[in-house]
């Protein structure tokens, strides 16, 4: 007992939260942990804003004729709901907020490779977000988040579209810089003894994500810049009236925006890999397959963008090729899923909040992935395109899967970030509410879509009323779950029990730092072992967390 107490007793570590005081010490910090927390703040705000838009949309759809907001307002709301959620929550959510905090810690490093670039990246993101909010002030945008010309670049559009394009451009650069930083960090700052196949799978996922961020995002940047100039100077690239080709815009847009789906889902998969192993008390099954399938998804993801353009005037040969290539992505995704399930098999599953969210992820991602096959195959996509089937599908993948994984990761690393344990009761209930609410909200949309309800309209035929009402109820349950989770987490700051170094019995390096870590993360450079080797780890008590017995493998 006395040795345990000695191992557990906290050395006097000054937490990174207390190192510097005042607003300036946060806004100008180059500490990756503080930058991660600031990202988290902005991203939570974006989620809230996008969520409020979603609630208004769902309420408007309560009655077939709408009427809560004008049809014009509805168009602007669904555009901003999409743009805010995609560009400001789902894309940066896991890599920029959780990734920034966790990546150097999992490497046993003091910081990311380029801390100043990291701060610049944060400020670019903040500026991009501000530009999006500014579009609201000047009257909004009603083009849909895809900003397709010719409609989006017509002369009659106001200032809103220009601000939105600038916002995407600036936020895009933030994303490129984050990706660059992550790859350089993982390449050059691994501790002695940590080979490529000793990396936690979350880092493999961030690495694969960063490849996409570096390669795809510049194309989006140039595309929105061209759109901006087309609108102002009539370049003749995208607008038919000046001799331009609007399909070219779609090619450019999806060359980024399809891989961007993997920017969203890959880090989510990384979190799942961490959590499922720790809470099954079992080393991850098929480590190398999971690691390599992340890279495979990142690379194959570049060859499938045309499946968004089956009905856009793309040539039939391109459509056939893209349809075939799209099916290939299913392979690495399935490899991951089977490995996760095999990890749980005969494991000692602990149903803490992160694990419940991960189980929700499996259910939601399974449905999202399988319905993707319907849309990837050319023949079924043509009738389903631009119906609610598409809306439901991408919400299952981009929202359901990413959101549950984000919540899993947030609860998982919350003790490390804040030094406090959240309320397990609130967390568990929130996870169940999110799972139930999500499915109730979006399964009816599949049904409405198959029955032919088109997307993006403020009103609909009376025949779809039941599906829409059920969906609206589900959306409110989902929102209630998220609010409960937010309350549970925030309340822990005031009332939560102090978190030990290793509350979950995980083996990756971040859990050998203090909770919360000091400004330099580790008091002495940690020795890297395999991140899923749980031998010798045992729980001292709920309060004191887990320690590795002396003499056991590191």
């Amino acid at each position: 007992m006395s040795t345990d107490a000695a191992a557990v007793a906290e050395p006097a570590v000054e937490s990174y939260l207390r190192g510097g005081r005042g607003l300036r010490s946060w806004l100008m910090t180059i500490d990756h942990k503080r930058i991660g927390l600031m990202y988290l703040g902005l991203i939570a705000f974006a989620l809230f804003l996008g969520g409020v838009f979603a609630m208004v949309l769902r309420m408007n759809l309560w009655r077939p004729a709408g009427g809560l907001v004008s049809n014009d307002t509805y168009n602007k709301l669904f555009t901003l709901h999409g743009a805010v959620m995609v560009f400001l929550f789902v894309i940066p959510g896991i890599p920029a907020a959780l990734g920034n905090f966790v990546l150097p810690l999992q490497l046993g490093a003091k910081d990311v490779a380029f801390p100043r670039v990291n701060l610049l990246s944060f400020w670019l993101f903040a500026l991009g977000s501000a530009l999006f909010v500014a579009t609201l002030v000047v009257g909004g945008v009603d083009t849909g988040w895809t900003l397709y010309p010719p409609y989006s670049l017509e002369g009659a559009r106001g200032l809103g579209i220009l601000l939105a394009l600038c916002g995407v451009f600036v936020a895009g650069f933030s994303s490129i810089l984050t990706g660059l930083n992550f790859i350089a960090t993982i390449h050059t700052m691994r501790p002695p003894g940590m080979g490529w196949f000793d990396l936690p799978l979350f880092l493999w996922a961030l690495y694969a994500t960063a490849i996409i961020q570096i390669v795809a995002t510049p194309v989006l940047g140039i595309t929105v810049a061209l759109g901006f100039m087309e609108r102002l100077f009539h370049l003749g690239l995208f607008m038919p009236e000046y001799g331009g080709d609007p399909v070219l815009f779609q090619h450019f847009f999806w060359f980024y925006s399809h891989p961007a789906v993997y920017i969203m889902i890959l880090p989510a998969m990384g979190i799942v890999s961490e959590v499922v192993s720790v809470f099954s008390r079992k080393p991850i099954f098929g480590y190398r397959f999971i690691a390599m399938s992340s890279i495979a998804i990142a690379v194959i993801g570049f060859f499938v963008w045309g499946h968004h353009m089956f009905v856009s005037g793309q040539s039939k040969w391109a459509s056939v090729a893209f349809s075939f290539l799209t099916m290939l992505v299913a392979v690495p995704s399935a490899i991951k899923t089977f490995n996760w399930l095999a990890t749980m098999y005969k494991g000692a599953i602990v149903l803490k909040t992160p694990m419940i969210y991960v189980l929700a992820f499996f259910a939601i991602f399974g449905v999202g992935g399988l319905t993707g096959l319907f849309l990837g195959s050319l023949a079924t996509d043509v009738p389903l395109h631009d119906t609610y089937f598409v809306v439901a599908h991408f919400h299952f993948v981009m929202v359901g899967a990413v959101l549950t994984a984000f919540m899993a990761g947030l609860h998982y690393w919350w003790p490390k970030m804040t030094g406090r344990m959240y309320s397990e009761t609130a967390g568990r209930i929130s996870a169940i509410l999110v799972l139930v609410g999500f499915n109730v909200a979006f399964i009816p949309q599949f049904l409405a879509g198959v029955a032919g309800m088109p997307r993006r309209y403020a009103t609909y035929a009376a025949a779809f009323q039941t599906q829409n009402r059920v969906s609206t109820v589900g959306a409110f349950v989902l929102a209630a779950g998220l609010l409960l989770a937010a309350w549970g987490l925030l309340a822990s700051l005031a009332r939560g029990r102090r978190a030990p170094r290793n509350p979950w019995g995980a083996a990756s390096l971040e859990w050998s730092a203090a909770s919360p870590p000091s400004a330099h993360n580790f008091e002495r450079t940690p020795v890297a072992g395999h991140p899923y080797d749980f031998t010798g780890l045992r729980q001292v008590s709920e309060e004191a967390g887990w320690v590795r017995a002396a003499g056991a493998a590191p």
Partner: protein
Amino acid sequence: MTSRPGGGEAARPRFLAEHFESLEAQLETSTTGIWLFIASEVLFFGALFTAYGVWRANHHQLFHYAQHFLDWRLGALNTLVLITSSLSAAWSVRCAQLGRKSGLTATLGLTLALAGVFLVVKYFEYSHKLHNGLTWGASFHPSPEVLLSLPEAIRALPVPEHLGTFFTLYYLMTGLHGIHVLVGMGLFLWLIRRARRGDFGPGYYGPVDAVALYWHLVDTIWIFLFPLFYLV
């Protein structure tokens, strides 16, 4: 990775950032970073090259006609200027690595000057075109004089529709490249200031190397722009 800078923990090199163990590790990281940046630049220009390819493949007549508005001699001159500046930038890295301070300042200065020459030539090209109504997209209205300057065989052809799109591509691609040249000039100015202060030497030359790599990329892009607009 394990090699320690001379002096161990006691004498920490001045330009070694806090989160690195050694200057070698820091250099390795900064080179990795700059190569990743170059990769994203390649894709940044890649989209513009795609637009070029689309128009060239589908509207060949635009290029056949409009190319005669460009003076290949000025393009070739600028190519030579940029290659020389690239040589000078590569040489500056060598000087920094060997610790030759005066050579470093001189080569950096030469690179900066050549970048300036490039932009002056570009300025004359742009102003001549803008003056004659050879502008982008829908605003393209060539003056009668500039049309008269075309070769006989070309003048006989009908003016192709949407000829301005050629100039859209021309201004976008050379303009974005020109912005990169401007940024490069700023970086070289910064390097010259630091070189005169004696910051660089065999132990620490990362910034010179990084800026030179960026500059070579700028050169490489022009190597493609020159034949695509001025020659074929």
